[in-house]
């Protein structure tokens, strides 16, 4: 079974007698718990068919509809959502700072690799604005640091160098061999300094130039380097600065990059939508409120707008929420449609963060949960598609 608790989609997870095996703390909580609420229209409980009918009518009447999220939906739901968006001329925005880098990766404008390749070959691993110990708890043990791999047989102490670059010394940084502290909002200056250091020039920078030169030396010696780019990096650094750094690193060694995001199927929806026409996502974990204000109907699918962007509370658009759990947005949405959770109560497929297609069999069996009776978001999307 695969866990959809994060974009690692660990495939060795099992549920026996109500106990989850092999999953981390986040995966276990994700599989065993559901904060589900009833279907609602105008914050009053209704039948799910009524909720879907209302949502369909709102979407059909909307002049500038916008779909947000889909990163926590199976690929089949995403395809149906894209068809619905095409039918009613809606924009789709996955609402993540990662979509820009994912686009560069899927269009091969920057070198990437798979997670098994990280395990087998990586000798220098950088966690940039990323703290997988708190967000992707099995990344270090499964792929990025601790396991032995084909060309890394001597264990992490000898074979791998982990480096953290972050605004704070995170838990992940505390186990890395070196840590470079970023001044908040000044990541790009660090990148510029590092590029100069890679060219053997002493960088004139606000950062300790000796330390930057030492880091450049380590990176140049890498046989197979990997950068895990986290949300805190992508929220502050423009994509072109990352590409400049990657080009420079690849002048001297073999460097790859992977985007480290949370939503289990973000890569698939980011690749399926044209982000040039979507709302720009310059804000970490959220959307640009100015662009959102142009919409008159927002459909949030597995995405909690009010949590990511509390300022969106004042947006004068009608809101439809489709989500397996109660969200902050469902607290004031015009229509709320609860659904089954992909990979847990509902089978499907998803794309792992490195692009691998993963089958998601339904983890819960009959009798283990009442969730199997819940309608899937795919079914909801298909019914909306039919009705509009």
């Amino acid at each position, binding site marked *: 079974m695969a866990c959809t608790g994060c974009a690692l989609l660990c495939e060795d997870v099992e549920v026996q007698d109500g106990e989850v095996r092999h999953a981390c703390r986040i995966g276990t909580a994700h599989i065993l718990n559901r904060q589900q609420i009833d279907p609602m229209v105008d914050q009053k409980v209704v039948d799910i068919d009524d909720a879907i009918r209302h949502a369909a009518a709102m979407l059909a009447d909307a002049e500038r509809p916008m779909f947000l999220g889909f990163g926590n939906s199976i690929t089949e739901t995403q395809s149906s959502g894209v068809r619905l968006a095409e039918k009613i001329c809606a924009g789709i925005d996955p609402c993540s700072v990662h979509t820009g880098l994912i686009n560069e990766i899927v269009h091969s404008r920057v070198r990437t690799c798979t997670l098994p390749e990280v395990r087998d070959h990586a000798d220098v691993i950088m966690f940039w604005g990323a*703290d997988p110990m708190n*967000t992707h708890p099995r990344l270090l043990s499964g792929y990025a640091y601790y396991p032995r791999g084909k060309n890394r047989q001597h264990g992490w102490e000898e074979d791998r160098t982990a480096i953290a670059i972050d*605004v*704070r010394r995170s838990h992940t940084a505390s186990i890395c061999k070196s840590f470079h*502290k970023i001044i908040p909002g000044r990541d790009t200056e660090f990148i510029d300094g590092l590029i100069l250091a890679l060219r053997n020039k002493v960088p004139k920078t606000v950062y300790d130039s000796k330390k930057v030169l030492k880091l450049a030396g380590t990176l140049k010696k890498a046989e197979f380097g990997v950068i895990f780019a986290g949300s805190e990096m992508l929220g502050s650094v423009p994509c072109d600065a990352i590409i400049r750094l990657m080009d420079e690193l690849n002048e001297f060694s073999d460097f790859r990059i992977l985007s480290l995001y949370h939503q289990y199927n973000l890569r698939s929806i980011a690749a399926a939508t044209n982000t040039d026409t979507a709302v720009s996502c310059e804000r970490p974990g959220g959307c640009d409120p100015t662009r959102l204000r142009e919409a008159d109907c927002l459909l949030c699918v597995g995405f909690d707008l*009010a949590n990511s962007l509390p300022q969106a*509370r004042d947006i004068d658009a009608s809101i439809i929420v489709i989500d397996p759990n*109660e969200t*902050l947005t469902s*607290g004031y949405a015009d229509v709320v449609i609860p659904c089954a959770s992909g990979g847990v109560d509902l089978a499907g497929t998803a794309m792992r963060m490195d692009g691998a297609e993963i089958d998601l069999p339904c983890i819960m069996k009959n009798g283990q949960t009442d969730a199997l009776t819940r309608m899937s978001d795919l079914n909801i999307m298909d019914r909306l598609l039919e009705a509009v």
Partner: protein
Amino acid sequence: MSEIRIDQFLAAPECEIMIVRYHDIFQTEAALKHGKFSKEYQDLSAVIMLDPADLKKIDASDGDPVKISNEYGTVVVAAKKSDGEDDTRASEGHSGVGYMPASVWSNILGSAPVSAKMSRSQQKISTIRELIRV
């Protein structure tokens, strides 16, 4: 007759703080287990980790409510002193920079890193319902 304290009438000292967000596995777990409206989630989210020097600047102690505001919004959260030996978030000074878990309490202040003004507060910690007005 109760004693009148002059400092009651003085504005609480204020300082500039740069807000940086972080992720906390226990907070994510609390959201999944108990929901985002739960006390468990609030206790792990409505906090700011502060350098002892910043706590001193605003005359606050560990656990005191602090008001943080900027052009995007205002929030009251619990101040936490970051000086514990086993706290990796605090193993070095970070005066002028406050660490908040990623949640609506930090997001209300806009896209981090973002600067804000901070002072000790007599108000209660903001609840999620107050922040999103439901």
